[in-house]
């Protein structure tokens, strides 16, 4: 094994050798390595958020025909550091009547719940925190903690707008968890395993090709889980002041901010792992570093789409949001699950034919549901009066 093929495993092996050379027991060395990995990974993830914030602001700026941050450093790259310093030195304000424990626990949970997911994602053929055989259930469980953080923040702040934000977020997260879990069942069904690495290895044809309906549902529901636009009813500025985080200031607010950006990136990471083939690609098995590169490229493609979503779609109304999950996504997920189960098993012997049939059927299902059910999900508002023009042009005056 050479350093350039697989640097992380190389360094880990070298460190293990050093520790064993010092006379440490093998279990002790393994424990130290695990603890080190567990400390480094979240640290890198949180540092990475600084870059993500810059990237997203720059891109949103471009969408809105602005430059985005461009004053501090080359291309404005140092801007997030300046913001970070500013947020560090701000004052902590705790509102009167706030519930101390939930109020302070919520920001920590909002970041911690997301970081938990990173423990089971395979970054390359060899780099993986824990190879859990129930990795997918673990990811769903970690998603539940995010809902908890919104709820605690809403309750702890002793503010009715925060409380409404908390209620909304829980209604949203619990509703979107249903189609998400059902859509994740489809890749599991084709793979026969709940382990994330097994799911990646099974994707000789990426699941987005064989299961487009599941991929679409997972993408929409995970954007909703992250509470990103167009699903940002939790922090609807125009209705709820700022939602569940009204009363937070300084670094505590910063934690929510970091949690949101990290969550958006994490769902991109999950989507590219579960539906785009993760680290798979030509030569990724022999050169794990290459696999890591593939994963990064795929993830940034998905993240780009997530930002496009945020930049171009208006916010849902709360009834539209509920209609979308209960009247479109959940039925689609259930129908697609049954159809996939019926078709996948008889064709399991011929993978190419299976892939084609599944793709065609699922794509048809997806289109039918989104065009028929999607239009009827929310009843149209009756038009009360005739539309009248806001301003009447005076052509005569202009010419005169």
């Amino acid at each position, binding site marked *: 094994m050479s350093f350039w093929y697989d640097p992380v495993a190389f360094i880990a092996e070298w460190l293990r050798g050093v520790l064993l050379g010092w006379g440490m027991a093998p279990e002790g060395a393994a424990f130290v390595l695990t603890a080190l990995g567990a400390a480094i990974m979240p640290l890198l993830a949180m540092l990475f958020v600084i870059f993500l914030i810059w990237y997203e602001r720059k891109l949103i700026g471009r969408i809105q025909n602005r430059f985005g941050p461009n004053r501090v450093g080359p291309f404005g790259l140092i801007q997030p550091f300046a913001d970070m310093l500013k947020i560090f030195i701000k004052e902590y304000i705790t509102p009167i009547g706030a519930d101390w424990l939930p109020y302070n626990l919520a920001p920590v949970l909002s970041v911690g719940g997301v970081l938990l997911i990173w423990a089971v994602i395979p970054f390359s053929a060899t780099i993986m925190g824990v190879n859990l055989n129930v990795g997918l259930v673990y990811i769903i469980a970690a998603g539940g903690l995010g809902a908890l953080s919104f709820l605690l923040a809403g309750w702890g702040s002793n503010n009715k707008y925060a409380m409404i934000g908390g209620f909304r977020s829980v209604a949203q997260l*619990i509703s979107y*968890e249903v189609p998400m879990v059902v859509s994740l069942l489809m890749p599991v069904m084709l793979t026969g395993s709940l382990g994330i690495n097994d799911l990646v290895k099974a994707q000789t044809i990426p699941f987005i090709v064989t299961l487009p309906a599941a991929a679409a549902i997972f993408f929409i529901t995970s954007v909703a889980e992250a509470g990103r636009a167009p699903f940002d009813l939790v922090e609807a500025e125009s209705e709820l002041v700022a939602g569940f985080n009204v009363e937070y200031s300084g670094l505590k607010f910063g934690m929510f901010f970091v949690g949101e950006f990290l969550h958006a990136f994490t769902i991109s990471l999950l989507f590219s792992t579960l539906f785009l083939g993760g680290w798979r690609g030509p030569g990724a098995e022999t050169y794990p570093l290459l696999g890591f590169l593939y994963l990064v490229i795929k993830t940034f493609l998905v993240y780009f789409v997530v930002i496009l979503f945020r930049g171009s779609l208006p916010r849902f109304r709360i009834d539209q949001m509920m209609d979308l999950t209960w009247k479109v996504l959940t039925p689609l997920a259930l129908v697609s699950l049954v159809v996939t189960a019926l078709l996948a098993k008889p064709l399991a012997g011929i993978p190419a034919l299976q892939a084609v049939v599944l793709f065609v059927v699922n794509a048809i299902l997806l289109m039918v549901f989104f065009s028929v059910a999607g239009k009827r999900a929310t009843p149209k508002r009756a038009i009360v009066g005739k539309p009248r023009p806001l301003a009447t042009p005076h052509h005569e005056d202009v010419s005169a």
Partner: protein
Amino acid sequence: MTGLQVVFLLIGAVTLASAVMVVAAKRVMHAALWLILALVGVAAAYATLEASFFAVMQVAVYVGAIAILIIFAAMLTRRSMEDDPARLNKGWPAALLAAGGLLAGLVYLFSRWTGFSSPARALPEGGENIAALGLALTAPEGFLVPFEVASLLLVAAMIGAIYVAGDLRK
């Protein structure tokens, strides 16, 4: 004492302490938070039993769904809770006696039982076999009927909850 035993003692202490706090906490919201810690502790105890599926399921179902439901209910009914200073009813010494008596009885029974020496069974390579669990739940010679009854129970509970909590007079 091995490392695993120390870990188990820690888990047990944290879980039992938070369970006591669930029962003793003044505000219902805090009791719910302690309940979450206790449930996570139980999940960790499952993990020491190498039942990773149930450890993760415990967090997904109990923390992700049941605890959030309980917090929701606590928030919706908060007005009546804050008025009430006394959190235990008048018969609490009798309750303490009953619980303590039950614990003493159980410990006495344990002390007379001799099956403790049996060592843990060997698990197949790669931990518990989830496929075997799935097969046992759905095979006709396994537990198909209890499984179907359980799903029926869930449907009945869902309909019942909607009927009871929903405002049907409208």
